[in-house]
């Protein structure tokens, strides 16, 4: 499965924090030759470990001051219902992520809004109108940090 060694993990750790670094900069950082770094990066990409890159944006400067996580419990169960719900929820532009989970809730959503009033609009018009949506719990995000993980 793995086949990735400590050097691969170190490369991933550097890239997780800053994906803008060139192969040359990484090579210097790691004390390796540039072609060696290049080969490893290609292998990480081709195997799908490096899935892509994500721009880190200042959400507030773009006018999205509020991020809310919603836990949603469906009011009924059944294959049709899940599919209908998933199709409808992924179509809402303010919904950034949708996770199907096991536990107190069935789905976990990440929703961005301009402010609390805007969030209320999204909640009432979009979320409450979703087919099968039952109990909804909202938690407003205050801070967030991504960690490098077990690398």
């Amino acid at each position: 499965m793995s086949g990735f060694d400590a050097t691969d993990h170190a490369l991933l750790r550097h890239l997780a924090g800053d994906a803008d670094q060139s192969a040359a900069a990484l090579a210097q950082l790691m004390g390796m030759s540039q072609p060696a770094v290049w080969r490893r990066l290609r292998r990480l990409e081709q195997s799908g470990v490096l899935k892509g890159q994500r721009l880190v944006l200042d959400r507030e400067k773009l006018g999205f001051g509020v991020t809310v996580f919603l836990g949603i419990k469906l009011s009924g169960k059944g294959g049709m219902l899940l599919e209908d719900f998933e199709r409808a929820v992924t179509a809402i532009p303010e919904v950034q992520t949708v996770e199907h989970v096991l536990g107190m809730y069935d789905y976990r959503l990440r929703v961005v809004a301009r402010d609390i009033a805007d969030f209320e609009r999204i909640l009432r018009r979009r979320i409450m109108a979703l087919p099968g949506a039952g109990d909804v719990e909202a938690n407003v995000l205050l801070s967030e940090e991504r960690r490098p993980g077990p690398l």
Partner: protein
Amino acid sequence: MPVAELCDAVGSTAAVTSRRLARLRADRIILGKEAIIDWSKLGYNVEVSLRVGLDKTQSRAFDDFIAAAREVPEVIEIQTFLGRVDVRLSVIAKDMTQYQQIYRARILTLPHIADIEALMQVARIKSDEVLPV
């Protein structure tokens, strides 16, 4: 997305697009770029969302808890909230056996936990994290 594709998408020239990108970076609207790692490809097949309520009678509950959570390598995300949940941790593990070990040895031992509840991720249905600008 390479600059060339971006130009096509927004219908602009390479020079204009590069200049705009540079300005978005200078204005600190684009803060940086992170690599997205597919943990399942590295053998981490379990992802659990732990929703933690803290003991708020302890004035340092948040600081102590978060500082200790940062020391757990399997914690890949730490978020704080206003609502029923105080802190949420995303924890990854290779399998349920390893998850159980991490949960008992590293998570339950974190300071000031009042209650904790787990959501196990079954599938990611959408994860573009694109802002609706």
